[in-house]
């Protein structure tokens, strides 16, 4: 695998370069005003120029997103485990998880500020958005364990804990890791959306604040520079989680092996 990783990276980079070039040409060719769509070169320039403000904002948002992801992982997995123990628990708990998932907390973020500090409110929103995919996929994974293997563990009277560690956890890994990858992206956009909604402002503000502030000031290149940072952060999170997936599954799971042989 490591031998082809260089070539693996080449194609997406080439495609990316092509897309950026087309964008640059389009903006120049049609003389699109900066406040409608800035050229990539201008965005890059802004990124360099405003790096201090933008990177410190990125750190704030990233910290929130990662904390939310960690909590969502803990919470999602714990709940999935609980639910997998019995149908009654599932029926009692699941409706609440769904309500939490579909309630647009973002919409009541202002209200949330009544109960919570802004930073905490943002964390709660990001957590709620990332939580459900992890729960749902971990649940699917835990429910899909090969019954023959469960019987094997039953035969040896494995303790629930050993059964979890040695059987259910590894069996649920592929689905769980997919949930984690989904949750990784969602925690980031959840954090941004929540920052927008909760409007944590001033010092220590995250990227969403910089984005809306830049928008308010019609500094669209900075807006896009901030967006580019978020995207890069998201792609990095995703890439790290994909690598993790690869490392965990490559030896045995179909999905992590090549498409061909």
């Amino acid at each position, binding site marked *: 695998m490591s031998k082809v990783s260089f070539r693996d990276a080449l194609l997406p980079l080439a495609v990316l370069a092509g897309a950026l070039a087309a964008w640059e040409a389009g903006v120049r060719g049609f003389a699109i*005003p*900066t*406040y*409608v769509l800035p050229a990539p070169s201008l965005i890059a320039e802004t990124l360099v120029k405003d790096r201090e*403000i933008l990177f410190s904002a990125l750190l704030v948002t990233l910290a929130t997103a990662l904390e939310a992801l960690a909590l969502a992982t803990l919470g999602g997995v714990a709940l999935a485990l609980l639910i997998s123990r019995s149908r009654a628990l599932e029926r009692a708990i699941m409706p609440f998880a769904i309500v939490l998932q579909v309630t647009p907390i973002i919409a009541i*973020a*202002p*209200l949330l*500020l*009544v*109960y919570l500090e802004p930073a905490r409110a943002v964390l709660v929103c990001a957590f709620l958005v990332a939580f459900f995919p992890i729960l749902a996929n971990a649940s699917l994974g835990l429910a899909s364990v090969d019954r023959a293997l469960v019987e094997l563990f039953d035969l040896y009277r494995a303790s629930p804990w050993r059964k979890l560690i040695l059987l259910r956890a590894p069996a649920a890994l592929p689905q769980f890791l997919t949930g984690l990858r989904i949750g990784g992206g969602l925690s980031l956009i959840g954090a941004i959306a929540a920052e*927008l*909604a*909760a*409007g*944590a*402002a*001033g*010092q220590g503000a995250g990227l969403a*604040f910089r984005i*809306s*502030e830049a*928008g*308010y*000031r*019609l*500094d*669209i290149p900075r807006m896009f520079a901030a967006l580019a940072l978020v995207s890069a952060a998201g792609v990095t999170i995703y890439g790290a989680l994909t690598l993790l997936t690869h490392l965990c599954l490559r030896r045995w799971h179909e999905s992590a092996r090549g498409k061909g042989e």
Partner: protein
Amino acid sequence: LDKVSFATNWRAQAEHGGFYQAVVDGTYAKYGLDVGIVQGGPQSNARLLLAAGRVDFCMGANLIQTFSAVQQKAPIVAVASLFQKDPIIFMSHPGAGLDRFEDLPKATAFIGNDNLVSVFQWLRQAYGFKEEKVKPYTFNSAPFLADKNSIQQGYLTSEPFEIARQGGFTPNVFLLADYGHDSYSTTIETRAETIAAKADLVQRFVDASIIGWYHYLYGDHAAADAAIRKDNPEMSEGQLAYSYAKMKERGIVDSGDSLTLGIGAMTDARVKSFFDKMAKAGVFPADLDIAKGYTTRFVNKKIGVELRPAQAASAP
């Protein structure tokens, strides 16, 4: 010193200048107050924070909110109005057939939700604006810039500056106050229970804020500006200067009643006049007991009028 917190409705800007002034020049301290300013933002709802007791005072944008609180039986009371004119404006592109106020109803209008459910309802009734023309304004003027045949809401002191800088033209600006929108603005609101239990504290906060505003407008406001820029590093000096100039030029803070009664002035007649317009537009039921929503007992005391230089008395 009594610790009190005051929530603004936006990120620190010149429109909050008097409050920052009172903090930095020691006016609040002189009145026995230790004031912490809590900045607002596009989605924050300072009045919820006030109602829930998370802050002691908050800044109200206009009287519509005051009436809403009465309607919802929220015990929030406006005790002073630092702006005599609501700085809300409409802007249009010059030379696009939208150069007169009467032209505006035919244009696509970028309006924020808060104004849509309030001021705009009156504009509909009074000037024939149409809701079908409205697109959401979310504090980003790019859609307005991109569409010559559109109008957008804004603050007199704010949006026109960036439009001129980024869009490369000076937009037509229509101050709604000039067209009959006579709401107060930048009010100080507090809970009814605070008034009942600590009327003295309320009075001191109102008085000190008023004095802060006099100093900000007519004295040395460099320290206040610095404090604003510290709270909101994105605020440029140019923007601050522009806002300050516009506030003075159009008498946003100090004009009309405030010339005689002092900054912060509120009169029952003015409140009633605005309420009648809103009631007529169907925004509020005509029998709403608006007296619950405000009180003039803390203002109109000519506090600080002596701080206004003589030549400033003839502002428009």
